[in-house]
């Protein structure tokens, strides 16, 4: 191990400092698919979560259970499914998404939908019913009350988005099957690791692994830094998370 890690670390540092354009492009592509995937997922996941979290209806527990179960969906299974759908003969073949970054991003979005839905719905569902009563007795409409409850649980939502981004970022199945790991086009960090491992260049594979880990760790640190500042200073909280939705 050690005879791989040390040179790998050196190579990782070299890769980063040498300004190898493919390395930067790979990092950029990975951030792009993970970011776009998470954002896309928000489009439908947050409304679903608001509905599941704030409204009661019969059979709600079944739907929540299904989303919980889907959190553990194997990425290769989803990747294969999308590969078939996106391939030229597939139902969605006309969209030309196979072997594209946007294709990967859509796959990632589907992958993290259950994560965002489950975490956000649970956070909203457990938001104090007293907060809802407070908003209503102060005159808030149903819609405004919901906005307020979302704001009150915004931190849990941010954490679920971070978890989703990380899941997209470090996921291999969809990236390789839908993306195809085409050099210079759809290759991302995880597929680089897989490819270089297959080619036997373990230290290069490891170097990519180290870059991936470093980015995940830095992101986690940034999130907890924001959380700390948020706990200490209202102003920053307001600035970062809430322009003006439902309050000040």
């Amino acid at each position, binding site marked *: 191990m050690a005879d791989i890690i040390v040179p790998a670390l050196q190579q990782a540092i070299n890769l980063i400092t040498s300004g190898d354009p493919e390395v930067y492009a790979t990092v950029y592509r990975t951030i792009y698919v993970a970011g776009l995937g998470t954002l896309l997922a928000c489009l439908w996941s947050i409304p679903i979560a608001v509905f599941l979290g704030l409204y009661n209806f019969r059979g709600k527990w079944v739907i929540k259970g299904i989303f919980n179960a889907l959190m553990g969906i194997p990425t290769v299974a989803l990747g294969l499914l999308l590969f078939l759908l996106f391939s030229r003969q597939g139902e969605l073949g006309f969209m030309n998404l196979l072997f594209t970054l946007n294709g990967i991003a859509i796959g990632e979005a589907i992958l993290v939908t259950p994560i965002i839905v489950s975490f956000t719905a649970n956070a909203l569902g457990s938001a*104090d019913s007293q*907060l809802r009563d407070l908003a209503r007795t102060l*005159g808030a409409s149903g819609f405004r009350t919901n906005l307020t409850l979302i*704001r*009150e649980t915004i931190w849990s939502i941010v954490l679920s988005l971070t978890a989703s981004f990380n899941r997209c970022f470090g996921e291999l199945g969809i990236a390789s099957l839908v993306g195809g790991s085409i050099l210079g086009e759809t290759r991302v960090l995880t597929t680089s690791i897989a490819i270089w491992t297959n080619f036997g260049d373990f230290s290069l594979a490891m170097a990519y692994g180290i870059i991936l880990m470093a980015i995940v760790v830095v992101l986690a640190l940034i999130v907890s830094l924001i959380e700390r500042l948020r706990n200490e200073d209202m102003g920053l909280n307001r600035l970062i998370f809430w322009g003006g939705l439902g309050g*000040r």
Partner: protein
Amino acid sequence: MSVRLQLTDIKKTYRAVTALNSVSLDMMGGKIIVLLGANGAGKSTLMRILAGLEDPDSGTIQFNNQTTDAKSIRRVSTLVFQKSVMFSLSVYGNLAYGLKIRGVPEGEISKRIAEALEAVRLSGFEKRRAKKLSGGEQQRVALARAFLLNSNVLLLDEPTANLDPNSAAIIEKAILAKKSSSRIIIMATHNLNQARRMADEIVHIHNGEIVEASAPEDFFENPKSEVTRKFINGELDF
């Protein structure tokens, strides 16, 4: 314009518990109605119904002689909860919440907030995080938040329960200052002296029923019901 709030035959049960059993009341603007009653008597339940946060199982609520539902009673009433609840906002944000909904302009909002904070002796607290305040400070913010909205029906559920004697006296004064012919103030308390000091009418709820409703003098000197007499003397046992 004077306002009127009438309850007829309000019932509310939670599974096996009858929280309110056939409560009828007729209340006029300009008055403070004090609700007395033991723990679990049904005071908070009645408040929540009057705030439009809960539907009664049966019975009607009329505001200005018109039958209303929970949604429309909510437009004219504001409840200050027994246990104060704060949004994760600054004190200013908490106080501004209801005013923003009502479309009050920003400049006006900060002026009114400064006055409201002054009335509960929390001047300069605008920027503090509401959730980090002490229990009594939060309760005073909650009161100021409700006072600001100038609702026709002001519901105060044990507004001075967490306050030191000095603050309680200040809050009592602030509540009295809110008396107006266009406002009915309904207040629950366990403090008999406070009831005597503040009430225009005292309503004694016992096991979800009104057992006595009268002016303070009659209530204390001359209670009609045996339960009320025992309650006043602290002899009520279950």
